[in-house]
């Protein structure tokens, strides 16, 4: 604490001066400044530049060397023969990625919320060594996505640990990463594995905030366990559940690293997700097309904002109804 106290002391006189000059609210600006400055330069400004990118064409990387093409890139993304069949689209892979991402989001978010909820309920019981068990489920959150993808690729590949285990137990090995449904399931499962601990903790915090008396009241009211869950636990956990929902949704739409390492988007293109598409178009392919990548990323951002605002809307409404 000594250095902290020192900092507080050393900077105090000049800042006191500032406060005298500008008043208390000037200090608000002062406190906000460093973060907003960094934020502006490294997030907001690039974001704005990205919009400019999406309206340029060519392979050049620097905006100044790029040719203005208006909305061509967007047109290219939306150029479809038949809007119901993504194979007829000029950028069929984009639409494949959109479709895959949508399915992924639905499956992953529901599985994530479900598993996190069950885990939180289990951890909320009167366990011995609760913090150990909490750590067990939280642990994968610490791993980098690349490591997560790697470990699981090893386990799931045809010559992997899982098949070895199945083989030893006398089962037919399954080609997890080559069968489309299995591979998709693996992508969902692995991303749940990697992040569920975090969301379980948020829900656990929510569960622990539910007053014990409510359960006792329900017990006095002769409520069956199932009904307690549906009518008491779940509604009272709703604020936390919504937070989890928003966060998982945002993260699910942005899914990239671990799946990229795990399946590389395969088999075929069945786990090709939007971020991978953007990454490949913008960076990885030999002739990159940053304009197209930017256009795709801006579309993705718009969808995310709409989704999040929608969910936050639900939260708000819920807040207003649930007198707290």
């Amino acid at each position, binding site marked *: 604490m000594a250095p*902290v106290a020192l*900092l*507080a002391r050393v*900077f105090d006189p000049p*800042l*006191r001066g500032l*406060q005298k000059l500008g008043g208390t609210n000037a*200090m*608000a600006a002062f406190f*906000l400044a*460093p*973060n*907003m400055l*960094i*934020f502006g330069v490294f*997030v907001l400004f*690039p*974001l704005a*530049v990205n919009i400019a*990118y999406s309206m340029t064409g060519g392979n050049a990387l620097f*905006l100044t060397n790029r040719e203005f093409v208006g909305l061509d890139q967007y047109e290219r993304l939306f150029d479809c023969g038949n809007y119901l069949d993504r194979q007829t689209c000029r950028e069929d892979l984009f639409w494949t990625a959109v479709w895959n991402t949508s399915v992924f989001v639905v499956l992953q978010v529901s599985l994530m919320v479900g598993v996190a909820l069950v*885990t939180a*309920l*289990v951890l909320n*019981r*009167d*366990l011995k060594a609760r913090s150990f*068990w909490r*750590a*067990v489920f*939280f*642990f*994968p959150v*610490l*791993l*980098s996505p*690349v490591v997560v993808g790697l470990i699981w690729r090893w*386990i799931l590949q045809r010559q992997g*640990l899982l098949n*070895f285990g199945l083989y030893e137990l006398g089962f037919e090995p399954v080609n997890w990463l080559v069968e489309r449904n299995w591979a998709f399931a693996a992508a969902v499962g692995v991303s749940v*594995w990697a992040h569920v601990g975090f969301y379980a*903790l*948020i829900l656990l*915090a*929510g569960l*622990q905030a539910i007053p014990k008396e409510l359960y*006792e009241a329900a*017990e006095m009211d002769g409520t*069956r*366990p199932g009904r*307690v*869950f549906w009518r008491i636990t779940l509604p009272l956990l709703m604020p936390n559940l919504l*937070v989890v929902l928003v966060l998982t949704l945002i993260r699910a739409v*942005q899914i*990239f*690293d671990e799946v990229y390492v795990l399946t590389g988007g395969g088999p075929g293109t069945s786990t090709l997700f939007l971020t991978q598409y*953007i990454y490949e178009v*913008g960076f990885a392919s030999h002739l990159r097309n940053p304009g197209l*990548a930017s256009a795709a990323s801006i579309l993705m951002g718009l969808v995310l904002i709409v989704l*999040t605002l929608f969910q936050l809307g639900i939260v708000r409404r819920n807040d207003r109804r649930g007198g707290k």
Partner: protein
Amino acid sequence: MSRVSSFLLRRRGDTRWDWTDVFTWFWLIGGFILMFGPAAWLVNSSFKTPAALAEFPPTLLPYVTELVQVDGYDNALPLYEVTDENGDARVLAEVRRIGIVSQMVDPANPGEIIKVNIQDRTPRRTVSFATENYVEPLVANDFLRYLWNSVFVTVMATIITLLTNSMAAFALSKYQFRGRSTVMMLIVATLMVPLSVIIVPLYSVISAMGLFNSLWGVILPTVATPTGVFMLRQYMLTIPDELIDAARMDKASEWQIYWRIVLPLTAPALAVLAIFSVVWRWNDFLWPLIVLSRRELYTLQVGLNTYAGELNVQWHFILAMTVVTMIPVVLVFIFLQRFITTGIAGAGLK
């Protein structure tokens, strides 16, 4: 307490076991295997030689074939267990293999060459840890330098993150000023921007600022994370305004209020953010890869990746160094984990 409370509440009731107890233990033990198993496998694999790594079926432990020095042969020879026609088992050393026939000698009696079909021999193996997977990168390949860079990036980024985010959160939670909700909206909206989306423009910015090939170029863009501001602000909202009024009455300047009152009281949330920041920064890969191209500046994750060539990946080094990179975050986590639930609960993340 009855069954109602036993599962859905928090306590295990009577000594009686019901399905919820069974399920709890099923979930915990299953979770333990599923969550820790893969990582244990990773650690275990990191001690295997390249050949053992490529092997299928994989072995549980890192094995190598036992070698024996046999008179008359310069190099040590691998030992095999051989079943001969009579069904007797013998231990022989292989001199060479020609096609499907293996020429072997009895180490005790090296004179005579015995020919064995390769189907009839199994290597005799002992557990051996390929510690060179660790030693070589750490000693020869500058991994200690990378480690230092990683520590520098992680520590600086975390400190700056905690500092700037908490300052911003303080302003956004304890002051009334015009535009406050706009700033909040802006911050929340950018929660949704993945790095890959702004990578090219960000590169231009870094490059224009001369931060290319500088650890600060890695640190700065990551520190203004909206998650942190959001989380800390939620937590600070729970600090009573009275405390701040009290400090003002106590002649404290706003700066001192921030340092001496608000920061210490935000400790649980700061701890949570610190854990996340350390994990994020430590594991950051794509961005440092883009900013850093000089060996002496590499972070561990980037250094790790140098083993990924065009056509070949040196898994044994990657795995070993992955394990090394995991250790610090696990330590930080163990150290700070007691704050996690209170921090999250307080930050409410609502």
